[in-house]
């Protein structure tokens, strides 16, 4: 049962884990929204919540615990114009992981494109079918 224990599980660790579990629950709820709600618009809203929750999860994965109670970890931005080696070393000790942030930027842009496309299609569906209820949008079957 070693894996069930979380290292340094103090009050801060508990709060962080609580936040993560709310994000996971958001994922599940929004999945329910996409799969089971009848309105296409509601599906789109749930879809954006789904992809945003994935993004928050990615950022939380790259997060680094505060080094101490008074000094926070820093964003992955080096704020010295001509860094010396010592600057880089001390920066690498406190900065959060930059790679998930790059991934999330890409994912936000892609999600925007997909969402705008789905909005356009929904508009077209309403023009052609007169409804956005998927139970009535079922010409193709069998």
């Amino acid at each position, binding site marked *: 049962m070693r*894996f069930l224990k979380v290292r340094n599980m103090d009050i801060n660790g508990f709060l962080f884990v609580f936040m993560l579990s709310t994000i996971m629950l958001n994922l599940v709820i929004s999945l329910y929204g996409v799969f089971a709600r009848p309105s296409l618009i509601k599906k789109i809203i749930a879809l954006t919540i789904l992809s945003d929750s994935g993004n928050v999860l990615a950022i939380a994965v790259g997060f680094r615990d505060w080094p101490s109670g008074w000094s926070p970890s820093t964003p992955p931005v080096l704020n010295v114009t001509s860094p010396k080696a010592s600057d880089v070393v001390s920066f690498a000790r406190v900065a959060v992981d930059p790679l998930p942030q790059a991934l999330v930027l*890409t994912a936000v842009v892609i999600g925007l494109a997909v969402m705008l496309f789905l909005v356009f299609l929904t508009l077209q569906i309403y023009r052609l079918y007169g409804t956005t209820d998927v139970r009535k949008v079922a010409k193709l079957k069998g």
Partner: protein
Amino acid sequence: MIGLNSVGVLVPSLVGFAFILPLLGKLIKNVKFFHIYAALASLWAAILATYNAYLVFTAGTQVYPFGGWPPPLGIAYELDKLNALLGMVTALVMLAITIYSAWYLKDYEGVAYYYTLLLGLEVGLIGCLYTGDAFNLFVMLEVLSISAYALVGFYRSKPEAVEAAIKYGMFGAVATTLYFVGLVFIYATFGTLNMADLAFKLTFYVYYPVPNPFSGTFFGNPYVASAVALALALWAFTYKSAAFPNHFWLPDAHPEAPTPVSAALSGLVVNVGVYAIVRFLYTIFGPSAFVVQLRDAVLIALLVLGIASGLIGALMMVVQEDIKRLLAYSTISHIGLVLVGVAIGTSSTLNQNSLAYVLGLAGGIYHMVNHTLGKALLFLVSGILIALAGGSRKLDDIGGVGRRYPLVSLALFLGVFQLLGVPPFGGFFSKLLIYSAYMEAGMPYVSLMVILISAISLLGYVKLIYASVFKVGSPKVEQTTKVSLPTAIVLALGIACLVTGLATTYITSMMFDVVGSFATPQGVYDYWQSFFNTLLNLASGVMR
């Protein structure tokens, strides 16, 4: 520094070709220009992809790090024999489809938009196949998906087309997002998204656990991360490849697209899903990875799903009245067979019967190629038949058009024989490989299911041939339609089908070679070994 080479230049140049098109569409009004432009871009891709395959088969695995960044930081393309072969097949079939589009859209005005999307689809396809980075796979999957959704809904004033597009797109977006969440879990534990790096870490994690320095507290458990990532990634990829419970979008989306696009979607896009499944289950979570039990359970689930989608595709195919819908269900059935083939690699099979392991995988990959050729051919033929029958997709209305065009009928027969598995054709040999793999592995009931699936789908193919060639009807054949160009293309594809069967000894040994490059422990070793060699070369280049 690594300069331009043919592996790295293909996808970026295609992106350039694709996205300059809307601009050109504003400037140039001559429709013919766009047909020639797109054909030339496709030809360029086909030449490069063929050259890449040649390079891989003669000189071994190729790694191309973009911008000279060492791979775990930057994106790298990594070609082993599997994705080089599939990339070549994809580019060649896309070339045929692009030339066919010139005939199909000869009276259509907005071809610049169409070709932008079609080339975007090709970018997505080849990018998905070539990439050696799991996150880049996500990006390319999205490029592929957005092009595919837009092409399915290309006739945007047709209710059915828009309905198919939104059904495909809504759950497709869910699938790719879930894959992203899976990647987050992988990154949290292993600290990398490069496929070769992941393969290495998953093999040796038990001995040298190196957790991600940023998040070693909550996400550090490699078993949880592997389980979540594999479940979510597999769900997304079976959506893309239309395996049984995730297949619902396919019979709607493929018939409603323009016919050349149907050929691309049905022949090539589903392959990407299967390729990603194979890459994840054999190279990354390979037979020597530490999550053996999980992998076995997932492979058994995949086997069951493969059989189910084979049966359901074959059964539903029999009762269709729409020629393209019939072909779409046939795709589901064949993807089921491919999945049956690639689901053989449980650890017990590998340890006790490596012959069955190699046979099944080789059969699966071989069948994938055969199905691509046959299905692209049949969809293109269906486009000709539909045009000749005055635009109706109903089998009743097509009734007997084929008997006035013997060359088109010949191509139809070649394609049907390929998919049905009539002996001199490739489809027979690949089905035989899958069959004998399961006989060898001591699971004869799976072999029986392969035969049963073929037998049921026979009814559907007989119906297709009967309705389009033998049936005596009074179809309104449009005499004005010239079909010499598409007939030449479908005949070329038909000859390709015949070649895959006649050269079967050569191709089968090539498939064994391919399986050796991605699925055996030696192959996985080579995969990350060439990755680390590139890393070392880059590092020494920086030092100098």
